[in-house]
């Protein structure tokens, strides 16, 4: 095996992994804080991609410029989802929250299909598209490099927010013990809403970055949603650092699987790896 190909796989995988990580961090945050698996997470990503797509196609606003707008919109969607839906099912027995987010995901996906048809769409002529950059005598698309760096930065920002700021401390306190946090004067409701918004904002960024090099269609969220779940579980539910490393691992494995086995099996390899790792580490790589 040629060393350059190996390096290419590793670095491409790393880039993809950074994006997976950002998507997964949004999901694991919500899970860690309020014990809810948001099955509509992938659909939020799809919405973000469509927003950037349409802003570019209709008004020629580059995805990089629509990124801040997307963050705000997706944050608002997250907060709205919390107040309208999640809040009402938070204390419901067992599987109700799962049912609610599934219902939401089916609703969003099919509404998108209704409005925008199931066609695959891709943008052409954005600032970042169609350029390549040479790194260590390997070629990469600028859009992917930018998406990876951007995702890494935002992931770090979320990490900083959770672990270094006062709001972050309140979020962590609510995750640890809801009743006690309430007694300490933390507005649990607001913290939950903020966390849900933050989860949305993560995919808002990811969507704007991905549309530069990836196609969008109403079902795009399903695949990334499932990958995000696997990433989150692999890293240990609720574990931000875990999700980051798991995302990178999955990115590399997926790329390598596509090259060494067959493109059709690249996700199969990821799922098999997940099952193998979980049989040794039943709570994920970083779980305890």
């Amino acid at each position: 095996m040629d060393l350059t190909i190996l390096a290419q796989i590793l670095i491409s995988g790393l880039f993809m992994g950074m994006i997976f990580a950002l998507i997964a961090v949004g999901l694991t945050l919500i899970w860690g804080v309020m014990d809810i698996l948001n099955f509509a997470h992938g659909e939020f990503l799809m919405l973000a991609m469509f927003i950037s797509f349409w802003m570019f196609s209709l008004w020629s606003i580059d995805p990089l410029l629509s990124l801040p707008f997307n963050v705000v919109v997706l944050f608002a969607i997250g907060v709205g989802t919390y107040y309208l839906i999640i809040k009402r099912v938070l204390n419901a027995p067992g599987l109700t929250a799962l049912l609610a987010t599934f219902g939401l995901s089916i609703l969003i996906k099919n509404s998108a299909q209704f409005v925008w048809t199931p066609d695959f769409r891709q943008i052409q002529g954005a600032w970042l598209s169609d350029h390549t950059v040479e790194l260590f005598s390997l070629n990469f698309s600028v859009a992917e490099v930018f998406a990876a760096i951007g995702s890494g930065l935002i992931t770090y920002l979320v990490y900083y927010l959770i672990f270094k700021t006062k709001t972050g401390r309140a979020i962590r306190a609510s995750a640890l013990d809801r009743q006690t946090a309430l007694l300490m004067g933390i507005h649990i409701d607001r913290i939950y809403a903020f966390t849900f918004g933050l989860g949305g904002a993560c995919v808002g960024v990811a969507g704007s970055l991905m549309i530069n090099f990836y196609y969008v269609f109403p079902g795009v969220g399903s695949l990334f949603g499932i990958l995000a779940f696997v990433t989150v579980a692999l890293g240990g539910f609720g574990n931000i650092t875990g999700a980051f490393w798991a995302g990178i691992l999955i990115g590399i494995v997926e790329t390598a699987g596509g090259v060494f086995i067959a493109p059709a099996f690249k996700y199969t390899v990821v799922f098999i790896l997940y099952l193998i790792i979980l049989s040794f580490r039943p709570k994920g790589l970083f779980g305890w």
Partner: protein
Amino acid sequence: MMDASVWALLKKPGVLIILGILFLLPFLSENLHFRHVLIMFMLFASLSQAWNLIGGFAGQVSFGHSTFFGIGAYAALVLLKKYGISPWGGMLIGGGIAALVAIAIGFPVFRLKGHYFAISTFAVAEIMERLFMNWDYVEGAIGLPAPVLEEKFIHFMWYKDKMPYFYIGFVLFVLILFLAHRIDRSRLGYYLRAIKQSPDAAEGLGIDTTRYKMIAMVLSAFLTALCGSFYAQYILYIDPPSVLSLDISIKIVLVTVLGGAGTVLGPYLGSAILIPLSEYSRILLGGTGKGVDLILFGALILVISVYQPQGLIGFFRKK
């Protein structure tokens, strides 16, 4: 089967009346759509009840039941097509294979708790669909049409008339109802509920949790595969997206949870609401390719989960 608990179920006047009404319903109208909806209702009620054994009673949420459904469907058609084995035999063989696969999957994944278990079953379902998609022996993504044979009971094949399928579906429906009722009242049922409530406490009381989860899983997989074979013989064409996709797993879970997971009645309530809604809206609106039927489906699930968090069964419990 015909033991005390089944008699107790039959002695409840409501049960016999409802089963009687269900049996008479297809005679009300010759309309093919109507009969199709009834058959799909019985199929999904049975699937959902099968899932309920492991997902509802034992609380082990599986998103991998499409695997068992698909195994049943493929077993029936592959054995018929390549070996000329009657689908009735194929049904049992499919059930057997599904049970073995359930054991193979169960050993590693039953060690996982809660969401780790759920995501693992997701992974299994995705792997299986991908494998069948690329497996030439079963025609991969092209799919497998049933061979054209004479309409006969032994061939499990009728082209114009839906009534034979209704009768067979009805028998399957009633059998699974009795079985679920039996398990609900049995020692196994209590063990499973104990496992759901608290696996550690159950273990502490001397319940071999892995063993009983496995029993529930194997039974559930076997019954799900029977339903899969039934579906294959009913539609007479299968491909991985129609019998192995995650959507099937999810639909089974949604029907059960919407009705009320962990209760015998839940799956019937869930499919009585969701299946006619989804089938009729698909018949009326699905042809547009706009997904209007699924928009309604999603919206309904969302509304019910928000306003009736216990599932439809909550309506019956409130006084």
